[in-house]
């Protein structure tokens, strides 16, 4: 039965390019230019799948994205669920299967690439039918930058499927001319196979381009910022609601015409045409002329057009007016239509008069303008009684509709409204634009459509259980009836009760009809009921397309320091700290993490270690009021810091909670260098700018981020001075270079700024050199330190060492609910300053409580234990029934080489009052006894910092 329904001639397929494909396991052949649907129809296949709820056979209903039925699962070249056969371009070797409602996802990874592109234009035209082409050509001639996007594989829109004439020649000739003209404009971008699927604020339109499996990216998201938008998205034909209206072989009349003209396919041999308006007549005539036996035209109207009647008479086609299809026969495919007369006013159907045999039932219930994007853009719609459809309400936003999307249902009107819209849009962008002369399109007089009930009365099915409204969701008139009966009078409730409009097609064919039926059942106006909300996407879009190229390593920037490669070469695993990669520890052969960290800790405590601390945020603060400013943002007093000196400082948010900490060095009378924690650098800078620019505008201060200008190397341990001395010209003697001093000089021949800061409690230095010299200086220090057994250490060791000294880490030992007092840092909170950020909050009732959680130390009675971080703390030796009162939790916990045991920092209710007490932590079903201690475990007197 190969291509038995393919005409010998005609259509826009490439007959020299046959394509082989499999559907539901069977081999077929089609041509390049076919969709899967047209190729199936050419092979006589209508039935594509079964319906989701009732398992009824379902076929191809439409020829575009409005298709409610013909869902397929692509199996090859790569599995993709739920595509409509009517929009799926055929390719050689394609394998697909009918999909009864639910798709399946591939288990192997998608090999395709997806990307995105930003674009700007004066005028974006959506849709390249007659209206869109006219709009684009008009706007382009004015010199405006134009983007014309169309979902289809070629431009022309409906003109590709109607066989009509423009200026006496096939309309496609004009289409080609228009496209050629547009392509020649340097300021025009033509986007074929590109569906504009979303409209967002300020005319930001998003589109997906289907570039094909072999393209550099399979799909591309276009992010288009347009000054003006013309929506020329056409209209979708409405099916009719009658018993058995879902049998395969039932097809929209206009779609049948498209299959004929565009694909050279006859969708059947004997057709009944059932319509409520003029538009189906053209389909009937064209199909008849192509060889389809038109068994009858059933027109629900009492009066039919004399123009079309005479054409039918010439061809011997019978028209039955005031009639309806009251039911259908057939199982896998329609075999006949039951015709009945309609009473006057069409409120009742008479008994079935006649059964007409057919294998094709063409239906047309009028047209729904594709107002989805208009709706997304915030545009209103109004119900138009004449066309029984919702039309876009024009407004003064920069989005305008044209053509069938605006209710212009003749080609002449589409061309005119398109050209007008294009000209207006271009003018709105400041271009002198005039709609030029348009091709001549003949159109017959149009007779008003049928105004009877939205579901046709039938003696066969009173409840409407076989009268399908949303075929994709298997929802019927009976379902709407039940919803309304349940008390629902809102279209949104009915949608959710019946699920109408919630399938892949988002109710393109069912929306207006279901509103009509609700109105009818409630005896209210259609306009009153209205529509459901249009939402992006207009047609479904793959997750992968939206994800684009921000995948894998590009998911989020990987920030590295100047020393990164050295760390890699030396085997360090990395810790993610914000976007930074920081070396975590440097395992030697055979070492696990714990062993490596204990070794690194020992090295710092007894010899010397070195760490890359370049990730610390650094901000240059300058200006005559810098000191005053810093006094306001730090809890400490910073104005008293002397040039050449460094001070540790804490910043709080205005609610008194610790926000960041770091060191501040005074580099000149009016200049400081401030450091922040690694993850917080951007936030701190923004926070400082905020206060400077919006609150303390009188302060003369400038902030400059210099984080990456400097590479920073920490050198820590009793031998750090010895190492540094070998490579620097700075006098590193304790008297010359004291704790919390900084000095400029050279290190390994490069100019450097060296600070005496210690985060480990040991004698330590931090060496800052411009990024470019980072590795060179690091290696020089490493060489110089060899004789002292210099040991590179990572973040984990740094954490252990600082915890032994009771130094908290913001974000680990604090969680946004902790004040400096809670941390036991009242020494860092100035009592002398009138104000600073956070000060006022310390006296609030809750913040001033003495039983708040305090940072304390914990020592397990069992020295072999390291309590897991995050463990909760309780006061009792046995757990009562929940809820168990909790005292706090363990924030940091490690095994210490110097203590020879595990130890923790914890936030504990009234912790400082509990020092010396024993509290407990439930760990793995046991209660571990812990002694509450001061948070400083090692070198409490601070004797080691001078070496």
């Amino acid at each position: 039965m190969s291509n038995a329904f393919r005409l010998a001639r005609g259509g826009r397929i490439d007959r020299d390019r046959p394509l082989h494909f499999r559907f539901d396991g069977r081999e077929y052949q089609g041509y390049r230019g076919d969709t899967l649907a047209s190729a199936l129809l050419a092979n006589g296949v209508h039935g594509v799948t079964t319906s989701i709820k009732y398992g009824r056979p379902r076929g191809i209903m439409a020829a575009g994205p409005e298709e409610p039925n013909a869902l397929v699962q692509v199996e090859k070249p790569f599995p993709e669920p739920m595509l409509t056969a009517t929009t799926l371009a055929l390719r050689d070797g394609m394998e697909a299967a009918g999909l009864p409602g639910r798709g399946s996802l591939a288990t192997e990874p998608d090999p395709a690439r997806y990307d995105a592109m930003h674009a700007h234009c004066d005028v974006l035209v959506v849709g390249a039918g007659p209206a869109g082409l006219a709009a684009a050509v008009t706007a382009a001639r004015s010199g405006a930058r134009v983007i014309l996007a169309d979902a289809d594989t070629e431009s022309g829109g409906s003109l590709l499927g109607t066989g009509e004439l423009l200026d006496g020649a096939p309309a496609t000739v004009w289409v080609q001319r228009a496209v050629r003209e547009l392509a020649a404009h340097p300021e025009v971008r033509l986007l074929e196979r590109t569906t504009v699927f979303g409209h967002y604020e300020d005319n930001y339109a998003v589109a997906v381009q289907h570039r094909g499996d072999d393209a550099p990216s399979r799909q591309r998201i276009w992010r288009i910022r347009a000054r003006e938008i013309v929506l020329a998205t056409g209209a979708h034909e409405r099916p009719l609601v009658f018993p058995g209206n879902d049998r395969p072989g039932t097809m929209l009349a206009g779609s049948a015409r498209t299959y004929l003209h565009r694909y050279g396919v006859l969708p059947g041999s004997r057709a009944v045409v059932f319509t409520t308006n003029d538009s189906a007549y053209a389909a009937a005539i064209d199909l008849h002329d192509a060889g389809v036996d038109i068994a009858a035209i059933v027109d629900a109207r009492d009066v039919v057009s004399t123009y079309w009647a005479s054409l039918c008479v010439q061809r011997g086609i019978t028209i039955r007016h005031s009639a309806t299809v009251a039911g259908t026969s057939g199982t896998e495919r329609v075999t006949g239509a039951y015709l009945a007369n309609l009473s006057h006013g069409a409120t009742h159907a008479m008994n079935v008069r006649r059964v007409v045999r057919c294998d094709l039932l063409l239906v047309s219930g009028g047209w729904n303008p594709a107002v989805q994007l208009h709706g997304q853009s915030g545009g209103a719609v109004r119900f138009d009684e004449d066309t029984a459809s919702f039309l876009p309400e024009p407004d003064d936003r920069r989005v305008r509709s044209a053509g069938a999307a605006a209710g212009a249902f003749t080609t002449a009107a589409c061309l005119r409204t398109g050209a007008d819209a294009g000209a207006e849009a271009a003018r709105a962008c400041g271009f002198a634009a005039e709609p030029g002369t348009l091709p001549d399109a003949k159109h017959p007089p149009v007779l008003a459509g049928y105004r009877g009930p939205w579901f046709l009365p039938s003696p066969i099915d009173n409840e409407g259980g076989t009268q399908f409204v949303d075929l994709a969701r298997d929802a019927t008139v009976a379902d709407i009836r039940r919803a309304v009966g349940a008390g629902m009078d809102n279209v949104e409730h009915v949608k959710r009760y019946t699920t109408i409009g919630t399938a892949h097609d988002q109710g393109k064919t069912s929306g207006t009809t279901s509103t009509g039926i609700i109105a009818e059942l409630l005896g209210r106006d259609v306009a009153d009921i209205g529509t459901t909300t249009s939402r992006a996407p207009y047609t479904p879009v793959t997750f992968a397309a939206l994800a684009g190229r921000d995948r894998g390593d590009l998911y989020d920037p990987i920030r590295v320091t100047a020393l990164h490669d050295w760390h890699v070469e030396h085997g360090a695993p990395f810790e993610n700290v914000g976007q930074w990669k920081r070396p975590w520890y440097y395992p030697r052969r055979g070492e696990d993490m714990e062993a490596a960290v204990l070794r690194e800790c020992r090295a710092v405590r007894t010899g010397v270690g070195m760490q890359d601390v370049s990730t610390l945020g650094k901000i240059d603060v300058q200006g005559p009021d810098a000191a005053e400013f810093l006094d306001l943002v730090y809890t400490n007093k910073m104005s008293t810091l002397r040039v050449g000196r460094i001070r540790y400082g804490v910043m709080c948010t205005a609610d008194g909670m610790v926000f960041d900490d770091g060191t501040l060095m005074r580099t000149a009378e009016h200049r400081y260098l401030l450091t922040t924690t690694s993850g917080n650098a951007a936030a701190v800078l923004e926070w400082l700018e905020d206060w400077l620019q919006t609150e303390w505008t009188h302060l003369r201060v400038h902030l400059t981020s210099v984080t990456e200008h400097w590479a920073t190397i920490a050198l820590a341990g009793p031998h750090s001075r010895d190492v540094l001395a070998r490579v620097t010209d700075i006098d590193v003697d304790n008297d010359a270079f004291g704790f919390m001093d900084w000095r400029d000089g050279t290190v390994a021949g490069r100019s450097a700024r060296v600070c005496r800061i210690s985060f480990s409690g040991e004698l330590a230095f931090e060496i800052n050199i411009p990024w470019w010299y980072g590795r060179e200086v690091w290696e020089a220090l490493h060489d110089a330190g060899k004789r002292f057994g210099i040991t590179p250490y990572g973040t984990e060791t740094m954490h252990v060492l600082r915890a032994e000294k009771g130094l908290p880490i913001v974000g680990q030992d604090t969680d946004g609910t902790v004040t400096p007092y809670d941390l036991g840092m009242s020494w860092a909170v100035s009592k002398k300053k009138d104000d600073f950020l956070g000060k006022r909050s310390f006296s609030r009732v809750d913040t001033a409580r003495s039983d708040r959680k305090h940072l304390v130390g914990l020592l397990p009675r069992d020295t072999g234990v390291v309590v897991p971080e995050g463990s909760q703390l309780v006061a009792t030796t046995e757990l009562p029934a929940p809820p168990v009162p909790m005292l706090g939790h363990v924030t940091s916990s490690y095994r210490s080489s110097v203590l020879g045991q595990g130890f923790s920092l914890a936030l504990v209710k009234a912790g400082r009052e509990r020092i010396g007490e024993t509290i407990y932590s439930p760990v793995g079903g046991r209660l571990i006894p812990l002694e509450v201690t001061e948070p400083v475990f090692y070198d409490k007197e601070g004797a080691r910092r001078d070496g």
Partner: protein
Amino acid sequence: MLLLPCPWCGPRNETEFHYGGQAHVRYPDDPQAVSDEEWAQFLFFRDNPKGTFAERWSHRMGCRRWFTLHRDTRTHEIRTDDRTSPARTVTR
């Protein structure tokens, strides 16, 4: 994706900016002198109008300047006189 008019750099995509909430919220002249209630108002209570809202934005990925906009919270429309005569700095 809002298109926000930075008074310095011109219209830019929302993703370049950081939102700062209500504008013109003043830091008390003397925080130590205000009551707990007034302090709480300053810290946590903000207008949340349905309609025009004076709000702060920082052009984080651009010039790093803070500025004020009047935006309709129903439609996201930005009052056009702000486009032409933007507030350059604000008092919170």
